[in-house]
């Protein structure tokens, strides 16, 4: 599929959901915005973990770094919000580069542990340096559109999510996507092929960190209040749950999973922390019974339908 066709599909996708805030309450629109935020995070993490096979546990941290960098810059130096967000993205990408350089030679579980340690360190730093970050007291941030009403933010996040989806789709379909999948399937064989495996793993790490910071930066200036709580491991778990339930290694997986889990999570709000147990069970079922996730299930259903149609045609023609 060419870029033009993908662009067409993206625009269609946007138009298909653009009417939603007009028929939803502000609360529901808010839920949709948060879903779109998770769509961006999940796409980025799927690029790294699903396509490149690098299981990082610091994805939520890069969102936090984006949000805090932007908020602190805007508050202390008075730069425009967009400049603050851009700075957050640059910082996240730079930290991703350094962390990638340090960790990406490690194998699976060591990479997960090292990134987890990084994530906890950053969170604790923000919590402890409360004179600067206000820690658990929460940091008030200026709002991007000057209002907390969600309508405008919905379109902003819709545009961001679609742009990220299109860009990542374009990336995984390119040579670089082939490099990444080759590294995931057999790093040694990829190296024998002549791929600079380290360079491309790090590139995937930097890109995913930057995408997370974009999402985090904008969300911070919509919510208007930052705290270290969303930088806890729970948040990372949510991203993993979304990608796995939607379908790891599939392109639409994180999109479907993020929207599905976020909406489900809001529906079950009364259940509190029990939701995580429920999601964990859901993940176990998916991994054990159907690793291709919801997207794989959908594709299988589609194939089944086509097959049964084919059978019906054959029977009719007899």
């Amino acid at each position, binding site marked *: 599929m060419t870029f033009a066709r993908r662009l067409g599909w993206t625009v269609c996708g946007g138009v298909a959901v653009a009417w939603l805030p007009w028929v939803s309450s502000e609360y529901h629109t808010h839920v949709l915005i948060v879903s779109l935020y998770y769509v961006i995070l999940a796409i980025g993490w799927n690029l790294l973990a699903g396509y490149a096979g690098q299981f990082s546990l610091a994805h939520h941290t890069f969102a936090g770094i984006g949000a805090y960098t932007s908020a602190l810059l805007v508050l202390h130096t008075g730069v425009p919000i967009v400049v603050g967000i851009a700075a957050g993205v640059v910082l996240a990408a730079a930290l991703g580069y350094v962390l990638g350089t340090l960790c990406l030679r490690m194998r699976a579980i060591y990479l997960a542990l090292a990134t987890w340690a990084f994530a906890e360190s950053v969170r604790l730093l923000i919590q402890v340096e409360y004179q600067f970050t206000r820690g658990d007291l929460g940091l008030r941030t200026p709002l991007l559109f000057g209002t907390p009403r969600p309508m405008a933010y919905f379109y902003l996040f819709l545009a961001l999510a679609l742009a990220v989806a299109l860009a990542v789709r374009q990336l995984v379909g390119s040579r670089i996507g082939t490099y990444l999948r080759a590294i995931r399937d057999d790093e040694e064989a990829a190296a024998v*092929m002549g791929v600079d495996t380290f360079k491309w793993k790090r590139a995937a790490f930097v890109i995913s960190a930057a995408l997370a910071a974009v999402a985090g930066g904008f969300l911070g200036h919509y919510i208007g209040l930052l705290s270290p709580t969303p930088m806890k491991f729970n948040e990372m778990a949510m991203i993993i749950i979304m990608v796995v339930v939607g379908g790891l290694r599939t392109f639409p997986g994180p999109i479907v999973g993020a929207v599905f889990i976020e909406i489900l999570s809001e529906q079950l709000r009364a259940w509190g922390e029990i939701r995580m147990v429920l999601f964990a069970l859901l993940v176990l079922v998916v991994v054990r019974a159907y690793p291709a996730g919801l997207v794989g299930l959908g594709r299988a259903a589609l194939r089944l339908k086509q097959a049964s149609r084919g059978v019906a045609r054959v029977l009719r023609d007899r």
Partner: protein
Amino acid sequence: MERGTVTGIIGPNGAGKSTLLRTVFGFLRPRRGRILLDGGEIQGLAPHAVKRRGVGYVTQGANIFPQLTVEENLHLGAWILKRERRRVGELLERAWTAFPHLAARRRARATTLSGGEAKMLSLAKEAMTEPALLLVDEPSAGLAPRITDQIYVRLLEARDRGVTILLVDQNIAKAVEVSDYLYLIERGRVRREGPRETFASEMRAIIRDSLLGA
């Protein structure tokens, strides 16, 4: 090693044969010493850089991508030639002529190949970049003798085209048969070295040594 010859490395399990190949290709760094390729030092280079200097590596097992077709695997083998479309096309044609078995199965997924076919594909894939030096790790492991013979024939054909081959093998008889010069290594040290003729006459002693690790 002399250009266009086969050098065989034999030795008991754990002697460091595969480690030697992995070090040459850059997966491991030597603690000391130098590795020279055409007079230039290559120790410490990353695998992709070694590859670009004209080194191919047929690893133990088959370093192919099982979910891709035979043809896609060969395209991946020619990855570093990126933009030279025409050359890749020629190399592909050459591979089909050299490996008719693979040509017959070009659209089949690599996972459906037999062990011997997979090994052939692995060889064909490395040939796509026309390496000057080919590292070969245990080409006969786990294969039927008839297929093993075919693989050695391919290696000798490559040598006749001027490819230098560094061969690691557990199959001592076969290694002595195809190599021009051999090294027997044990616990990382060269125990014995010499041209094929010397090795052939000392085979008995070598096999005994190698088995008993004495």
